């Protein structure tokens, strides 16, 4: 299907931008709850936020199946064009999942959990949230955090934080999460405990 009439450009400098974004993602997961920025000079096609688009462009390739929720369906053509990634028809078939309609977030257990031998074969979730601030009501602790990190995330259903301890308990299996808003992102690996 020729869908090239609605394509948006990707990174202006693909190599450097991908490296910069990867570095940001790495820092975000190494210091859970720390909010980092990606380069705002990216023409992300709505409804994708810049950070969501940047993570996709940096991390997706021809072998990483991507699942998109109802609100982000139009991004499929964008990522297929720039990254060559397959689009997963079902949640369980994805290595990466991008969601903006967070009330309709499927249970975490439905995403790929990885295995004991290959825990990295799990899904990474990129959740585009309504609000992402330091010093919020959430208290994060665990590897990479000295003491406690405070974080505020808006738009998630309450069920997400109720499910999260089960994700912790599944270690080494489980999923990892990025929250994105605008050109900022933060990481929540499966090892981080959260008190809401």
């Amino acid at each position, binding site marked *: 299907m020729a869908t090239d009439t609605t*394509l*948006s450009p990707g990174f202006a400098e693909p190599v450097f931008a991908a490296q910069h974004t990867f570095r940001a993602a790495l820092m975000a997961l190494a210091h859970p709850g720390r909010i980092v920025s990606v380069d705002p000079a990216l023409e992300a096609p709505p409804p994708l936020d810049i950070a969501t688009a940047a993570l996709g462009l940096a991390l997706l390739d021809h072998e990483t199946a991507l699942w998109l929720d109802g609100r982000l369906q139009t991004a499929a053509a964008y990522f297929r064009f720039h990254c060559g990634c397959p689009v997963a028809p079902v949640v369980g078939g994805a290595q990466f999942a991008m969601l903006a309609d967070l009330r309709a977030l499927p249970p975490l257990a439905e995403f790929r959990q990885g295995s004991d031998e290959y825990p990295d074969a799990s899904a990474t979730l990129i959740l585009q949230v309504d609000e992402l601030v330091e010093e919020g009501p959430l208290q994060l602790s665990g590897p990479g955090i000295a003491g406690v990190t405070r974080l505020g995330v808006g738009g998630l259903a309450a069920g997400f934080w109720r499910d999260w301890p089960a994700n912790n308990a599944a270690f080494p299996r489980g999923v990892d999460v990025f929250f994105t808003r605008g050109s900022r992102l933060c990481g929540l690996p499966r090892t981080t405990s959260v008190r809401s």
Partner: protein
Amino acid sequence: MSERDHMPNDLTERRRRWMGVLARADRAALERTWNALPEQPAYRHLRKAESGLVMLRGRAGGSGQAFNLGEMTVARCSVQLRDGTVGHAYAAGRDLRKAELAAVFDAMMQTTAATQIQGTLIEPLAAEIAARRAVIGRKAAATRVDFFGLVRAQ
């Protein structure tokens, strides 16, 4: 398979042909044509020129089980003209500038500039490709074994 098999599309076939010619072109020929244009169109990159790989396939026995034969380097580029026309190029090799020019010409071939580009670039290149193939054919034919040749007795 491709759309083409279900909906015979003359434009698709013509585009296939000129893209194949551009893929085989010398970068120098593309640069010459570009520099000789009375008006060089403005364009922006949708996907900057990059090189990558395509895994080539063969078939056992020529028509049986498909298998991965090995990879080939490929340069590709996607551009958009001011009027919104999108041009794509994929060519064997790693010549990024060639891929960029080929993508621009692919876009121009979808506009009113087509006739000019067809005449000054596509047709001459296609003729060169055909001529090269014809020479190979004649050289090969000269090495065909003639088991029953008669030699004039002297």
